[in-house]
């Protein structure tokens, strides 16, 4: 069967390390070292276990932020003192104080509570968009990596066309067609990140496919599905988790950008991008309305990048 032929596909040098430009986080993704069949499946986990003690302070900080964000997303009412939607016009435009830590907005809503409640939609949008992006990329990347020369050629050209468009533009086009809303912005961000992931996955797969281990499995007469699921995918996918972690932060930023433009969550949702948009009108008089949601976005993106890098180093076994 053609997809498991051992013929090396000379057309693709390892693209993985160089494809960070168009929307996919830059990652020096390396496959699990091909050619060491015995340890393949367990390589990543054991290595990272051994290195847990080597965490740097920055990584600890990032982990703490991530933990806090997850906590805020799961149990916002535990952390937020006020109802994020409860208006109180008499209390509007209050600066940060002991009662309202981050101040209040134009309708007297507590910004700290809104930032906490904003974690859930932001993280959900980020995670769901990344999942869509990676999922789609898996299908495309697998097709291209295993589907033979013509399929590879076809998918490769489609990806190149998609790469030619800036990712956010792709998302905007999709929203223009499908109408604004949370679901559409999730799909839009997912779709526009997919090409970057797909290219990396394809590179991984074609590299693993031509490894001695896969060659051996094919020679031993393993069924194609078995070869795919037991040997190729597990080894090709370990960098995907790293990519996903790195991409999460970016997806959150993109989703916030769309909300900022009024294309995401409708009012009065507590969503960071929408809060930024509402606050910018009052930037001159009420800086806290934009500052704190902005900090939340920056921290989310930064912590996911730091964690992604840490994960990447461990997987790569630097």
């Amino acid at each position, binding site marked *: 069967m053609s997809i498991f032929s051992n013929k090396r596909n000379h057309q693709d040098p390892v693209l993985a390390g160089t494809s960070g430009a168009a929307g996919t986080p830059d990652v020096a993704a390396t496959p699990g070292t091909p050619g060491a069949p015995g340890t393949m499946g367990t390589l990543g986990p054991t290595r990272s276990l051994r290195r847990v003690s080597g965490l740097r302070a920055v990584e600890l900080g990032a982990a703490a932020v991530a933990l806090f964000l997850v906590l805020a997303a799961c149990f916002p009412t535990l952390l937020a003192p006020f109802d994020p939607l409860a208006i109180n*016009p008499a209390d509007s435009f209050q600066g940060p104080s002991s009662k309202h830590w981050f101040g209040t907005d134009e309708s007297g809503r507590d910004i700290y509570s809104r930032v906490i409640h904003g974690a859930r939609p932001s993280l959900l949008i980020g995670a769901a968009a990344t999942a869509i992006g990676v999922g789609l990329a898996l299908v495309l990347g697998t097709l291209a990596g295993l589907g033979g020369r013509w399929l590879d050629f076809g998918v490769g050209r489609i990806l190149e066309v998609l790469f030619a468009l800036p990712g956010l533009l792709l998302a905007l086009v999709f929203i223009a067609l499908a109408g604004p809303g949370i679901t559409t912005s999730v799909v839009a961000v997912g779709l526009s990140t997919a090409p970057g992931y797909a290219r990396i996955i394809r590179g991984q797969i074609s590299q693993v496919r031509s490894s001695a281990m896969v060659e051996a499995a094919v020679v031993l007469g393993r069924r194609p599905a078995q070869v795919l699921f037991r040997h190729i995918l597990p080894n090709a996918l370990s960098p995907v988790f790293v990519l996903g972690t790195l991409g999460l932060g970016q997806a959150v930023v993109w989703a916030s950008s769309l909300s900022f433009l009024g294309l995401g969550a*409708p009012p009065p949702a507590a969503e960071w991008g929408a809060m930024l948009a509402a606050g910018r*009108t*009052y930037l001159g*008089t009420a800086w806290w309305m934009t500052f704190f949601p902005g900090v939340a976005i920056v921290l989310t993106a930064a912590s996911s990048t730091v964690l992604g890098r840490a994960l990447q180093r461990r997987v790569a076994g630097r």
Partner: protein
Amino acid sequence: MSFPFRTPRRAVVSAAGAVAAVVLLAGCSAGGTGSEENAGEPVSGGNLVYATGDAEPTCLDPHVGGNYPQALAASQYLEPLVSKNDDGEIIPWLAGEWQESEDGLTWTFTLREGVQFTDGTPLNAEAVKANIAHVQDPETASSTGYLALQKIESAEAVDDLTLKLNLKAPDSALLESFSMPWVAIQSPKALERSQEENCAAPVGTGPFIVEDWVKQDSITMVRNENYNSPPADAAHEGPAYLESITWKFIPESATRYAALQAGEVHVIDNAQPDTIAAAENNDVIKHLDAPRPGASNRLELNTSKAPFNDPLVREAFVRAVNVNDGVSSLFFGTAERSYSPLSSVEPLGYSDESLFGYDPAEANRLLDEAGWTERDAEGYRVKDGERLSLEFPVSTNQSIPAEQSLFEQLQATAKEAGFEIKLNLLDLSSWYGALAENDYNLVSAPYTKVGPDVLRILFHSDSTVPAPSGYFANLSQVKLDELDELLTKGSETSDPADRAALYEEAQKIVLEGYYILPLYDQQNHFLYRSEVSGLRALPTVSTPAFYDVWLNS
């Protein structure tokens, strides 16, 4: 206050009177709506930069469609037949005199002599006739102008400067209509061009000429050196002081204000309440408040479909939302709450505060009575499995952010009574689309017109039929024979007392039927730098006039 509108039946406003008005007003032009400290002698020359936050027009010819952004720009290069002074009286502009026949069915206008369009075409009766035909032509797709000139059946040029209009019915609002920029007079030669060409650079008699329009950036207007047709209440004669105007589009309000502070622009419109409040303590930036005439800014409750086809639900909604707290916190004292369908600058406005008090208990009682007794898990009321949900498309081009925040506050208070309000923030064309498809329960649609006849445009059942532009103005879709009759009669009655009584009765019906929720006047705040002198808003539709403006160095 004197009655603002002298009914022109048999009244002849003489050109001599106009000259007298010029002399009189030249001495005290700073008095009314204009700036207070026009220190020093006017200086000629310079380029003024104006930054507008209104939507960029798709067509600079205000006959086409006819919205406020078009009026803002067109007021600089087109002129209407008549204007209004600060006392609300109609005064000459391109027409020097006019006369209404005894039966009100024929009007004769005498045009000003020696006026030329900026393409050299002379202003004459044929030209005005061509303009009326242009507004009435369905191909033009006019809305505001079309509705304003609805009653004109035919026009004839009696001689070079005399125009006779034959009406289908008497029109007590005709002069008010003719004072608006949406029926301003353009060169008939220019109107013969394709609509695309005419939209890009309309040709009028105004003090400035459209030279260039870079879409999504700016319009460049240059001085009309041959200008000789200022309105009767202008402060000077001859060409404008300013050499040119750069008309910039800066939709983002904070950016617009920052540009003003930095001195990159001289005048901005659609100023945010917080920046107006800040300007009060600032010597460099001044404030011009010019509420628009016509309708107040109000929410229209769509009675054509559930749930607002039920008057109980309409009243419940009005009682359920807390407007006053929002207005006072969001507008920093720059907007006063309205309880009238008409703007506070309309002398015939009728208010009834008692109908619009915030009363959640009453709202709940009314909803129970209307059968919306159950509540779902999210606390919204339910009847026959349907949630009490309201679609509220909001045009982000026509609402400043403070207004959108107010809508969010209404959303929050209405929720307590069990109303779900879905705010859909839309650009102007999607918003028009939502209205055309009857896809709304609530909508805020500003409507500017000079005089109380705006009530006929907004609440007569005829206005549920779309104008050629596709827009229909009766967005509450109220259809009452009694109301129709009052509004029709009002528009045909010239006697001031009768007219006032008819419009008061009509406004009572509109308010008591809970077809609208009045919010405040259509906000029209300009901020300008202190080096700008002589700025005023035209008393007609409150657009800024730059004819008398000069820049102090």
